């Protein structure tokens, strides 16, 4: 693709805007009191797969910081976690290659592996270390919180992100093969 870089700039901006809107205004109860499903991570994963690691990382990072700013304080450790999460999923984008119109078994497995690694690195490692370093919070507490986050985000990215990618792959199916019935 030519002039890909401008498209990536725009994808980062729109991805961040989507992240913001979902994080800030959309509350779908998760079943656990006062906790909502973090749909934004599903969308971030979709953008990482569609546009690669840089867009995946920056769209989430910008979206996260803007969301935090509306609450009056930026939670840097988690913002970096979000950034790393998008980066790692994005690194697998070439392997998944959604633009072929395929999102079958092998792509889903790659996507799952990507998400597993990304969630483990982003939350119980990057964000937890950040929280411990910055706030000197007890590692056990931080780790427990972030494991919950990692599991929830993994599930969300798999189900929400996965289904959207699957739907998207269908929209690029070749139309030459179609017959009226």
């Amino acid at each position, binding site marked *: 693709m030519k002039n890909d870089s401008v498209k990536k700039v725009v994808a980062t901006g729109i991805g961040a805007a989507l992240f913001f809107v979902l994080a800030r205004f*959309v509350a779908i109860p998760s079943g656990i009191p006062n906790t909502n499903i973090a749909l934004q991570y599903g969308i971030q994963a979709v953008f990482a797969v569609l546009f690669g690691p840089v867009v995946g990382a920056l769209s989430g990072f910008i979206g996260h910081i803007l969301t935090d700013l509306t609450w009056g304080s930026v939670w840097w450790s988690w913002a970096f976690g979000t950034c790393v999460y998008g980066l790692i999923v994005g690194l697998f984008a070439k392997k998944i290659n959604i633009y072929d119109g395929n999102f079958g078994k092998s792509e889903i497995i790659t996507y799952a592996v990507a998400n597993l690694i990304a969630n483990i690195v982003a939350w119980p490692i990057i964000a937890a270390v950040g929280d411990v370093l910055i706030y000197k919070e007890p590692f056990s507490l931080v780790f427990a919180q972030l494991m919950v986050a990692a599991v929830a985000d993994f599930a969300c990215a798999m189900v929400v992100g996965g289904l959207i990618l699957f739907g998207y792959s269908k929209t690029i199916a070749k139309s030459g093969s179609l017959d009226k019935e």
Partner: protein
Amino acid sequence: MNKVLNYIPKDSFIHRLSGTTKLVIFLTFSILCGASFDTRVLIALFILSVIGFLLSKISLREIRVMTTFLAVFLTLNFILLFIFNPEYGCELYGSRTVVAHLWGRYYITLEQLFYQFNVVLKYVIGFPIAILFISTTNPSEFAASLNSIGIPYKASYSVSLALRYIPDIQKDYHEISQSQEARGVALGKDVRFTERIKNSIKILMPLVLTSLSRIDEISNSMQLRSFGKKKKRTWYVLKKMTAADYAMIVFCAVILIGGLIITNQGGNNLYNPFVR
């Protein structure tokens, strides 16, 4: 004016500073506040941020929502920290001064109180600074400021685009979810969990697809107006740096270096009043 972030236009010393300077202040405080657990440094930062806040002429009433949110969050966090590990402060400071016994393993110790005081302080410092940054900086200046502290202009422009299209995407989301609701797509508590997830896809799918077509069209229109042509770009909104701006940046450098030196004096970033 863009209403995504709570920008409150006024005429004050802080408002008149260039966005670049305010970004530098914001980052200096964020870094120092993140890196230091030295109570003296934190108190100094807190006093400075309150002074900044007073200078900005922003009234507490204008940021009521955020203040309430912070208060609730801090209270919860305070309780959670205590319940989860009431002895953590003692481990950290290497001593144990019991003030009272509550029940079971829960003792109130001076060390734990002091530790939690520091945590609260850290959150509280971040607050006026973040508020100060977003309420006194015109969002239009964000991208230009990021670019002027060395972030590549393309990445900086993404921030501007995000701010530009948040209202549009919010409207999209609202309209899509309403029209889906009319067809029986509900997301409330009364819907089964798996159903809720399925339903959220029915809203997200059109939202993502329209966003993708939006990306194509916007990037075409930006290329048609030379975005990406040169290695640099200029900014209509960038405020000229004044003497006050340079003074503030020098001031930031001084407190950053000073703060880091004081913090690391004892070999770690703690200030420990319990050591004799």
